[in-house]
């Protein structure tokens, strides 16, 4: 008799679904998937029931080939499950074990159902093994993919978060840079700054590099590029916030910033106001702290 693994699975799941499900859940529990507290027992049971039902549907399609249309609901379910697990922070092992632990359970049940037919058992086991391996791979692939999407999205968010352009005063912009300046970020920074210069009609842009951990020749080059582009748009740049150690390193490296630079953002702002013919003056004596809080 030709080994029909799909028939075997379909029969097995039809007659012993409860048993298989129970065994599977026991396995998962032993494996410690519930220990992390990320998923509740009955939630997992619902997921497993659905997987088993769709596996049976797939097997009834008359094949063990996972790419067959009969397995599409199962593939979709696993993909959704895997994606949500990736986002919830499950480990890869926990996610993979969900599918792979089913293998042992199915083998046991199959062996009990056909105790005498060793040839059939070997072939069916082999095919079921392949099917489940592919399911496992599929799950992991989606898992990995979701993680990567997450990382890419976070990278984008970080780069957008860390390059805000602030309007300090009429026609004065500030650009506090945070984090290392690589060529990709320079591009984003430059675009943001130039767009803001057009929108706000800015004349002076202060680039504050207090949050830039290191300034090497490459970073300096990127800064100068940004300054040059802003100048082409008709805005002058002032660089501020170079820390003492960084200033020393820059001199040792021979990095030269051929732009006006000030020690602090406050100094740069004062210079910007002075260039516009403005100044900050004190109009009355400073109030005591208590008074200031009340008014």
């Amino acid at each position, binding site marked *: 008799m030709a080994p029909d693994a799909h028939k075997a699975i379909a029969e097995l799941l039809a007659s012993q679904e409860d048993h298989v499900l129970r065994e599977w859940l026991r396995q998962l529990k032993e494996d410690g998937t519930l220990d992390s507290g990320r998923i509740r027992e009955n939630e997992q049971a619902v997921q497993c029931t659905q997987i088993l039902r769709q596996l049976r549907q797939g097997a009834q399609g008359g094949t063990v080939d996972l790419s067959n249309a009969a397995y599409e609901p199962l593939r979709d379910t696993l993909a959704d499950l895997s994606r949500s697990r990736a986002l919830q922070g499950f480990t890869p092992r926990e996610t993979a074990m969900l599918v792979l632990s089913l293998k042992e359970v199915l083998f046991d049940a199959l062996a009990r159902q056909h105790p005498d037919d060793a040839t059939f058992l070997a072939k069916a086991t082999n095919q079921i093994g392949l099917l489940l391996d592919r399911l496992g791979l599929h799950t992991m692939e989606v898992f990995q993919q979701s993680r990567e999407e997450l990382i890419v999205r976070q990278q984008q968010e970080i780069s957008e978060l860390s390059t805000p352009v602030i309007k300090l005063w009429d026609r004065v912009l500030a650009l506090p840079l945070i984090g290392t300046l690589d060529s990709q970020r320079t*591009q984003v920074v*430059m*675009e943001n700054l*130039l*767009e803001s*210069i*057009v929108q706000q*009609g*800015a*004349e002076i842009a202060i680039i504050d590099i207090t949050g830039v951990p290191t300034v090497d020749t490459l970073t300096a080059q990127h800064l100068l*590029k940004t300054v*040059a*582009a*802003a*100048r*082409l*748009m*008709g*805005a002058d740049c002032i660089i501020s916030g170079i820390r003492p150690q960084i200033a020393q390193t820059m001199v040792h490296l021979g990095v030269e910033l051929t732009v*006006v630079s000030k020690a602090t953002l406050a100094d740069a702002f*004062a*210079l910007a106001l*002075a*260039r516009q*013919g403005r100044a900050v003056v004190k109009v009355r004596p400073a109030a005591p702290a208590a008074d200031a809080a009340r008014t």
Partner: protein
Amino acid sequence: MDRIPILKLGNALLVTIQVDMHDRLATALEEDLTARIVSAGARGVLIDISALEVVDSFIGRMLDNIAAVSRILDADTVVVGMRPAVAITLVELGLSLTGVKTALNVERGMSMISGLGRLAALDADDDGE
């Protein structure tokens, strides 16, 4: 269109580039402008490139040349209205047009030319450098 019109505004010349520049047009503009600076006795040249979406290294160099020539003829060149994308392209091409003055729009460019003497005096005082 063979020639880009050059308008005289007071003691300044205004050039508005509204078509895509090709190389012959650029060369013609350079020649016309040089002649006009002398004949009109202009002290400033305002080049408005706000309609220019594409620049190449040739146009970039042309702007640099015009600035250099007009400096010799005692006129200041101000390039106004450059688009962000154009600015980035020029910087990536390594052309930062160091000899050219820039302004955000024609209005500011104009006040820059008319107030250049005054501005220079102010700068010396307030730079804080």
